[in-house]
């Protein structure tokens, strides 16, 4: 590795994004004012495939194509319907990077904002503007005829009209498509919006956000629009610190207040950065803030599963900021800002009706630039309101919502931009302050140790770069005041003093170290006195400023004697949100307020996280101990140990609640200008040869070889699908105690997998592939009985299979007969619908649901209970209690272990027990690829418990007479007297009168069948539903919106197609009974175990044309080819597939389709829950339950 020379300060200053090193200012007339509001647009980068699909859709809508407008409306108004298969959609294709690469339009837009270079955008704009059909003649930005299109004379009004019309206007789309290809109109519109009042509130459903965003979009692109000869050094709206106020080359693009742009790790991955380079980013950044929740104490109410909107999810690829000085007039009206905040909240709410209008408009503007705005935040410095005149009154100083001056103490980074202010660096012994080394904030400069960051490894990425921490912190202002008044009743001064103790400063910023008794007056106070103090030197024991006070923790200055604080500095660029300060004496005014915390540092883990986790939320650091957590922002729970000791106090203030709750956030990488320009040109930042440490090797590369390792399976699948191999035959390694070798053959072609799974007869009449292992497992589970899935249609188990099928079918028909008024499908769906309806009503208020536990498992259990007639036991079975502890028997558990679980008793022990039995049985029967002995043992117990239980249910039921069966169990009993049933137990040649006692054998079969039905239903249906929903989340398909446009008859297609791309059981095993040639050319030898690679077969392009496409098109997706529940029309087809499983799954999908705004959960709380390899939980969130799927 070459430790290349660091960048010069000058280089860094021209590369680091303006506003990061110095607080952002608005340029107003000839003066400057602190920026007092800001927009943050969180975006997702579209893939090229998504972009193409969107543009086609827009063009067709602009040409008034039938149906296209409705598609576009759905696409733009509903988050994430883009991939929903409304059009053939290319998904990530491992083989070619083109379709899932970032949309070229996005890179072109990056060029616009970083280099003022519109060439790419305009090329693209030409494509966009090329509209099909007759409508392409319309080019002029229309005069307002019939309220269509953008009206140049009053653009704001026409935007409002367009939004409020709630429909897709062809003229408007045409204009947006042509916006960037017509510079004169672009600039005219910009001018108009600037001169007119972009901010003017309008009557109607939407507020000022659409106008503000349009102005912002035009303003940000304007430097490019007026720049006819871009050079490598042209400045776009994103510009270096050194050029923050640089003019533009020609023309008047208006306001050029710079913006920032930064990317999350998933954003850099979406930009297709080199894999090695990507991996070289620091761990904290790679994991993202949600995954660091434990370290940051973002737990309880602050946990990522409760975060706002999309914050914390991988769909946030980055953010860019916006905002510029607004015209006087309307913009100083509180009604304007209130409407802005309402618009932002509506935009972020997936089901808000106004939100749809706003999303339609914003997506219309930004999708053509290759991005989807997924979330917006609006930052505002708090203010007060003169209610008589509805006027916003700015405060003298920047204050946060608890009422304290904020942003006072900042590390001074020595970029030769000025002198070090007191408190701005490391305190020297003589009372002077040494500035903080630039490398603490910027990646390409030397840090306090004279060292510099080696990660990420590509030096080209680090020029002028920094890492940004973004956190949305909600402040409970009313709760804060209430706590103060509870502690210091009826004494305003004492309350103020206690708050000052919490903070370490008085509200006006006077530090307690300098003035513990009272705040300085304005005259006594200067910027210098605010920060010119130290702790160890001026107040070593906390006599003035408590040891636990907020500012003493966040920046400990000289505490600890090792100048440790200098290694943990962050540059804060926070802005509040939520509008005006909460008026005194008011508990709530309907606003949620807090802080958009933004901080720059070069090492998130050593800087921000140390402050947040060890100093704010830890009580022992820098030689201090017993400090608890920060009284102001610590993650408290209101218990006795949540205390705070005031200066000089003997007893602590206890029971501190949490005044600040994390509502979202992430870690971002803010590249320097040169890097952004490279990104815009499609650079991937492959490491130079000397940049990869140790050749990229790591000890942790090594892993234990596993036969069913996902990487191995993928590798075999690829080798087979590519034709390199027909199959892979392996000899299992022998051990000292085992003489013979087992052999395993992996097959992957769809035709081969299908042949193997069918268990057919060869030409010579022998069985080719068998379920020998199912048979052994089933005998183990049922104490020697057989079940349908464990028998073959040919060979030794044939007769049993025929008998079991006959028994089951006769019962099913008898039941159908008895219930014939309805038909069995209706009966099944009726049961499922009513339980799903109940569940949705129950969870409607929680806005959280476990898709598997609450929907699929409940629905299936209802079928088991009501249709099969086997309600689960009233108790939690032994195995269900013991299994989480990896024990089989309760007796093996110490009593205190069981006591530890007391709080976690399931609501429905019958369901929980059935679920445990079923999961274990299925895991052993179908999932035990490795033939694990422990799993055989557990399933033997599960089977044994379950069979005992079912036997007892059958006996109970037999005791009462049955007239007309209402359940399958009753049908079995009703059927016992049928001569056909008795005949099934005829031995060869036995005369009918001498059958002996066949009933015990019949009921033994019945119990086995019921065990199989219950077990496979309870395990397979929820597992499959989990696969389907996970696939939809992964492909960012919004189910509620999709169902709105998909014919009901296509719901099965949706299930099959989603499951194809995310199979519930990726490998199924068979045993080769006779050496057999497979259609693909491989030969499987007698005695080999055959591992059928479902995952590979599902992607076989010979059968599923364009296999990575999520498609419902019957021309390329023949429903007969899906392998879920085995392919149709052969003897291995699952008995319950059409009778039960698909009906339940379809109803579950329809129910999930009623959950508007359905999405996954950020962080660890969103991981699927598994039991013995079977998914039993998949947490999700939603915003509203609709009465029906959206149509």
């Amino acid at each position, binding site marked *: 590795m070459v430790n290349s020379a660091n960048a010069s300060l000058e280089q860094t200053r021209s590369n680091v994004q303006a506003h990061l090193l110095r607080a952002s200012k608005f340029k107003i007339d000839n003066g400057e004012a602190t920026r007092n509001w800001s927009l943050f647009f969180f975006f997702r980068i579209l893939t090229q495939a998504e972009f193409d699909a969107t543009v086609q859709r827009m063009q067709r809508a602009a040409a008034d194509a039938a149906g296209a407008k409705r598609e576009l409306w759905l696409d733009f108004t509903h988050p994430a319907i883009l991939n929903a298969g409304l059009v053939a959609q290319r998904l990530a294709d491992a083989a070619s990077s083109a379709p899932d690469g970032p949309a070229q339009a996005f890179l072109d837009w990056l060029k616009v904002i970083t280099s003022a270079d519109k060439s790419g955008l305009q090329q693209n704009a030409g494509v966009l503007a090329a509209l099909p059909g007759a409508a392409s003649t319309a080019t002029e930005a229309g005069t307002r005829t019939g309220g269509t299109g953008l009206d140049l004379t009053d653009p704001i009004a026409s935007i409002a009209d367009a939004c409020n019309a709630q429909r897709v206007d062809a003229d408007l789309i045409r204009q947006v498509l042509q916006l960037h290809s017509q510079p004169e109109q672009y600039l005219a519109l910009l001018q108009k919006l600037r001169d007119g009042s972009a901010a003017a509130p309008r009557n109607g459903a939407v507020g000022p956000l659409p106008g503000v965003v349009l102005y912002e979009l035009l303003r940000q692109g304007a430097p490019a629009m007026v720049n006819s000869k871009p050079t490598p050094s042209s400045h776009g709206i994103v510009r270096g610190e050194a050029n923050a106020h640089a003019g533009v080359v020609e023309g008047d693009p208006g306001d050029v207040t710079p913006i920032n742009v930064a990317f999350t790790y998933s954003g850099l991955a979406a930009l297709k950065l080199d894999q090695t380079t990507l991996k070289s980013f620091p761990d904290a950044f790679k994991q993202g803030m949600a995954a660091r929740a434990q370290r940051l104490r973002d737990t309880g109410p602050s946990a990522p599963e409760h975060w706002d909107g999309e914050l914390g999810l991988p769909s946030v690829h980055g953010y860019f900021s916006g905002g510029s000085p607004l015209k006087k007039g309307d913009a100083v009206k509180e009604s304007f800002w209130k409407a802005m905040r309402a618009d932002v909240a509506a935009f972020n709410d997936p089901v808000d009706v106004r939100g749809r209008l706003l999303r339609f408009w914003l997506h219309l503007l930004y999708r053509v630039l290759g991005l989807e705005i997924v979330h917006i935040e609006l930052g505002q410095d708090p203010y007060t309101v003169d209610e008589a005149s509805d006027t916003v009154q700015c405060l003298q100083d920047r204050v946060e919502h608890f009422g304290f001056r904020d942003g006072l103490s900042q590390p001074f980074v020595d970029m030769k931009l000025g002198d070090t202010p007191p408190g701005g660096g490391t305190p020297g012994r003589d009372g002077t302050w040494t500035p903080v080394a630039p490398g603490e904030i910027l990646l390409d400069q030397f840090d306090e140790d004279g060292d510099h960051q080696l990660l990420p490894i590509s030096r080209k990425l680090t020029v002028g770069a920094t890492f940004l921490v973004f956190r949305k912190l909600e402040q409970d202002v009313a709760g804060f005041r209430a706590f103060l008044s509870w502690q210091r009743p009826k004494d305003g001064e004492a309350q103020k003093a206690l708050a000052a103790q919490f903070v370490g400063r008085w509200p006006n910023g006077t530090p307690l170290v300098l003035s513990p008794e009272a705040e300085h007056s304005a005259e006594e106070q200067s910027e210098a006195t605010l920060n010119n103090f130290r702790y160890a030197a001026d107040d070593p024991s906390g006599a003035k400023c408590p040891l636990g006070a907020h500012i003493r923790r966040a920046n400990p200055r000289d505490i600890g004697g090792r100048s440790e604080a200098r290694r943990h500095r962050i540059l804060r660029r926070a802005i509040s949100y939520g509008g005006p300060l909460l008026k005194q004496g008011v508990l709530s005014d309907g606003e949620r307020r807090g802080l958009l915390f933004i901080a720059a540092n070069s090492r998130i883990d050593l800087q921000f996280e140390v402050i947040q986790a060890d100093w704010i939320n830890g009580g022992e650091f820098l030689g201090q101990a017993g400090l608890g957590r920060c009284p102001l922002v610590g993650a408290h729970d209101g218990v006795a140990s949540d205390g705070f000791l005031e200066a000089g106090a*003997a*007893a602590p203030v206890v029971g501190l609640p949490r005044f600040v709750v994390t509502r979202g956030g992430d870690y971002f990488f803010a590249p320097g200008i040169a890097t952004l320009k490279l990104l815009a040109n499609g650079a991937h930042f492959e490491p130079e040869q000397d940049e990869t440490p140790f050749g990229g090797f790591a000890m942790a590369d090594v892993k*234990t070889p596993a036969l069913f390792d996902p990487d191995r399976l993928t590798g075999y699948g690829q080798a087979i699908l590519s034709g390199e191999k027909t199959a892979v035959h392996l000899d299992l*390694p022998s051990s000292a105690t085992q003489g013979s070798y087992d052999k395993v053959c992996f097959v992957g072609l769809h035709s081969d997998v299908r042949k193997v799974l069918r268990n057919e007869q060869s030409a010579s009449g022998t069985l080719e592939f068998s379920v020998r292992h199912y048979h052994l497992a089933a005998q183990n589970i049922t104490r020697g009985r057989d079940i349908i899935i464990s028998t073959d249609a040919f060979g030794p188990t044939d007769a049993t299979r025929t008998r079991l099928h006959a028994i089951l079918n006769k019962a099913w028909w008898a039941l159908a007969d008895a219930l014939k008024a309805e038909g069995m499908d209706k009966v099944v769906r009726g049961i499922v619908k009513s339980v799903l309806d109940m569940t949705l009503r129950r969870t409607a208020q929680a806005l959280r649901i476990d898709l598997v536990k609450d929907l699929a498992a409940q629905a299936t259990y209802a079928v088991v209970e009501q249709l099969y007639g086997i309600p689960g036991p009233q108790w939690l079975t032994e195995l269900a209690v013991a299994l989480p502890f990896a024990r089989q028997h309760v007796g093996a558990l110490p009593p205190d*272990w069981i006591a530890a679980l007391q709080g976690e008793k399931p609501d429905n022990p019958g369901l929980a027990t059935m679920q445990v039995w079923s999961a274990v049985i299925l895991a052993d029967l179908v999932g035990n690829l490795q033939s694990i002995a422990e799993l055989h043992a557990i399933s033997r117990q599960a089977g044994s418990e379950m069979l005992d239980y079912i036997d007892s249910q059958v006996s109970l039921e037999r005791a009462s007479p049955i007239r007309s069966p209402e359940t399958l169990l009753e049908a079995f009993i009703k059927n016992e007297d049928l001569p056909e049933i008795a005949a099934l137990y005829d031995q060869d040649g036995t005369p009918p009168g001498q059958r002996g006692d066949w009933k015990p054998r019949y009921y033994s079969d019945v119990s086995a069948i019921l065990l199989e039905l219950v077990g496979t239903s309870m395990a397979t249906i929820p597992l499959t539903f989990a696969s389907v929903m996970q696939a939809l989340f992964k492909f960012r398909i919004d189910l509620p919106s999709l169902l709105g446009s998909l014919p009901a008859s296509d719901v099965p297609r949706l299930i099959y197609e989603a499951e194809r791309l995310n199979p519930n059981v990726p490998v199924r095993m068979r045993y080769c009974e006779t050496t057999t040639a497979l259609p693909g050319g491989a030969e499987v030898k007698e005695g080999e175990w055959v591992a059928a690679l479902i995952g590979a077969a599902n992607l076989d392009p010979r059968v599923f044309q364009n296999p990575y496409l999520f498609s419902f098109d019957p021309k390329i997706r023949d429903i007969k080819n899906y392998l879920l529940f085995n392919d149709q029309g052969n003897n291995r087809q699952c008995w319950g597939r059409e009778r039960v499983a698909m009906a339940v799954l379809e109803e579950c999908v329809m129910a999930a389709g009623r959950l508007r705004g359905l999405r996954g959960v950020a962080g660890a709380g969103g991981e699927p829950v598994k039991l013995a390899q079977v998914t039993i939980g998949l947490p999700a969130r939603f915003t509203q339950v609709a009465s029906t799927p959206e149509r």
Partner: protein
Amino acid sequence: MTKREASLAGTTSSAATAHHQLDWATSKTIGGITEIAVLAPIKKGCVPGERRTYEERLVAAIDNLASRHQQGLPTELGRIAAIHFGRMIIIRPEQYLVHSNLEGLNYFPDHDGAAQAQAAAGQGQVPQPIDDYVESGSDPKKQPELRSFLLTLVEFDGDLKVYMRDIAKFLASDFDVIFQNCEAYPTTHSFERFWLWVRRYQINTNLLYAPYSDLTVVRIKQLEDFKRRFDAFVARVWSPRGPRVGAIEELFDEFLRSSQQYASNFPAPGGTYETGNSQVGG
């Protein structure tokens, strides 16, 4: 044949045959804390009747224990209240053979003469992955027999033999589930045989660092509980602006009675600790 190879093959002089007998490792002790490190070779090949190797079974057994602990469930290890920290690490030949030059072993190819550059950069030779599963009919060149090892590191209160006896008695089959995948493991049924196996594979530790060697695990838990009860007591009787209750003597006695000695269940037999109530009253 080099001299070293010859000596390994046992073909040299009598000097090489004079090998030490029962020269066992000794655990290091600081204050009341003792360590043990055991480096045990893992069995080769597939578990009889299963389609997984002993090493895969070992990984599964450790993962199972680890995930229960991660979920916050009490585990069998809680039954040994003496354990401060414990770790299990599987060490594979591709790891310990970095920087080696072993005949028959495949190393990553040194494209375009990068080997020298690698050596210069201190990367050394890196072995390619050794797969236990080989394709039928392929005729790989004879590979040297290489073992993976399980390295177990534990720091605990008290004496090694007492600790091992507790393991044999209280962990028993839970312990066997893991170590049955190692060579020559006799199970814990017979403590004496188990003890001999432990000594056979114990290795010497070069450094044991124990900053609180005078505190046992139970003592730490008790002090923690004491502090919790103390906070609750203070919250009941005292507020920052003076006493909350008139006579605190009775409450103080109650606090003292509740926090000095525990008669039972600290920890309970399963290893869990009952803790004092810390809710704020009122």
